[in-house]
């Protein structure tokens, strides 16, 4: 069987495992491309014609799928619980991007995340995986792949309780908003050396977990730029590292609506000159406000409201860095003279 045929078989396995008569009627009504994909039985040229002209599936000149992004308006799947879904998906060895958001949740709630994700995360060319909004549950187990190559992982709006990210050596961003993650937050996520974005707001069942200091240590998430763990019922003191940024390059710190206590790091606003967003509102922070900056600041938002902090409001004392220079070009662009207009064409 040729590689392109294996790709077709993998996609059709989705239908074999998760299709039903109702969904067939739904697809027919929508005039969905997925009817053609699931029922495809033709030549390589016909397959290439089908999959190279669509937004929801793209393939190379020889019919290898590299982009799989069914629109939730065009495809819904109802999969049985407790069975791996289309293990043949592991044959999609050329795929770089899989976006299956909102595909599973309507017809098959509470699928185990491993049943959907296991055959996808091992794909060695996959860089972006979006399984958000699918009502997936459970704990993502450690991948069987030694080195998962995914850079961007979207799992927002599910019911996940934990993730073992061992092996996700390439991960640059992970989105976990609105799940059911249980505490404590794992120290060993600090192995994610390439992680730039960690967004997991609104995970209220992290209750009483604290922010792992290991993440912010010198050998922690040294590439991290964006951290959002707002509305997670987190507690404890803010690790020194959040303020003592060291090698961290944080641009955005959002830890609002938690139960953090103790002082805010005094150098919170000064340690990183690229800092754009600081939102620590609605915690129980005490002690003096962090000091402002006397160098230029890129800050767009500083929200420290609704805490118990004392002292003076932070002061910023370097006006000229932030006032954009008035555009005053020595070579003004000459205005068009009416006579230079081209004559109308007839």
């Amino acid at each position, binding site marked *: 069987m040729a590689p392109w045929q294996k790709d077709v078989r993998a996609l059709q396995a989705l239908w074999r495992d998760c299709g039903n008569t109702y969904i067939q009627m739904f697809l027919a009504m929508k005039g969905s491309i997925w009817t053609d994909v699931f029922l495809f039985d033709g030549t390589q040229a016909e397959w290439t014609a089908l999959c190279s002209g669509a937004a929801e599936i793209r393939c190379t000149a020889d019919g290898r799928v590299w982009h799989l992004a069914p629109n939730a308006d065009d495809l819904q799947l109802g999969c049985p619980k407790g069975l791996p879904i289309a293990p043949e998906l592991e044959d999609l060895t050329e795929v770089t991007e899989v976006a299956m958001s909102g595909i599973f949740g309507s017809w098959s709630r509470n699928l185990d995340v491993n049943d959907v994700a296991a055959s996808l995360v091992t794909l060695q060319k996959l860089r972006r995986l979006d399984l958000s909004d699918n009502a997936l549950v459970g704990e993502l187990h450690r991948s069987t792949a030694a080195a998962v190559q995914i850079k961007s992982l979207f799992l927002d709006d599910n019911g996940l309780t934990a993730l073992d990210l061992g092996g996700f050596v390439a991960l640059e961003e992970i989105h976990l908003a609105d799940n059911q993650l249980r505490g404590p937050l794992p120290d060993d996520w600090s192995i994610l050396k390439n992680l730039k974005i960690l967004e997991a707001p609104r995970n209220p069942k992290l209750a009483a977990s604290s922010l792992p200091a290991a993440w912010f240590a010198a050998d922690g998430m040294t590439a991290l730029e964006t951290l959002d763990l707002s509305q997670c019922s987190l507690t404890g003191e803010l690790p020194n590292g959040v303020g003592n940024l060291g090698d961290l390059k944080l641009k955005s710190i959002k830890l609002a609506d938690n139960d953090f206590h103790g002082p805010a790091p005094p150098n919170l606003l000064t340690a990183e000159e690229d800092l754009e967003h600081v939102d620590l509102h609605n915690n129980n922070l005490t002690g003096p406000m962090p000091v402002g900056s006397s160098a230029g600041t890129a800050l767009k938002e500083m929200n420290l409201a609704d805490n118990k902090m004392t002292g003076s409001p932070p002061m910023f004392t370097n006006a000229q860095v*932030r006032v954009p220079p008035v555009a005053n070009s020595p070579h003004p662009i000459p205005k068009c003279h009416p006579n230079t207009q081209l004559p109308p064409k007839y």
Partner: protein
Amino acid sequence: MTYDVSDNALDGEVPDMCGSPGITYLFLHKNKLTGALPNLSCMTSLYEVDVHKNGLTSLEGDWLGGSPKLQHFNAERNQLTGAPPTSLCGAYSRTLYLGHNAWRGSIPESIGDCPELEVLDFTVDEASVDDGSAAGTMPSSAAFAKLTKLTTLALSVSIFLFLLRQLE
């Protein structure tokens, strides 16, 4: 830039904020700040300023009316005293809360020059009405007549009682 340190236990005076001229939202409300609110004419991007519920005693300078983008200003529930600034609002002002303070003087006639004003709250507390110190806090009806968008006007019922008493 949004600058929000509201609802803490900050004390002392409000520092000079002119180092951050890009601030659009300045929220210092619900703290224990005292002294004067500095002249903020240096901050030309301001859209909203809220300093309510502190212990401020004055507004420094006459900058409010000239702030080029300011739409909302709230300094109610402080201890502001003396005469209100002569220029309280400008071309874009929409809400102005100055009530529950200890003003000793009138709402300026220039209030009529704020065509977009929707809310004017100058509520006078009972105590200052009773001791007569809030006398003359009403601008002329000619000034009010120009506020065509005004939907909320709060001057406290008491003040009318006081004015009635003056007439007797």
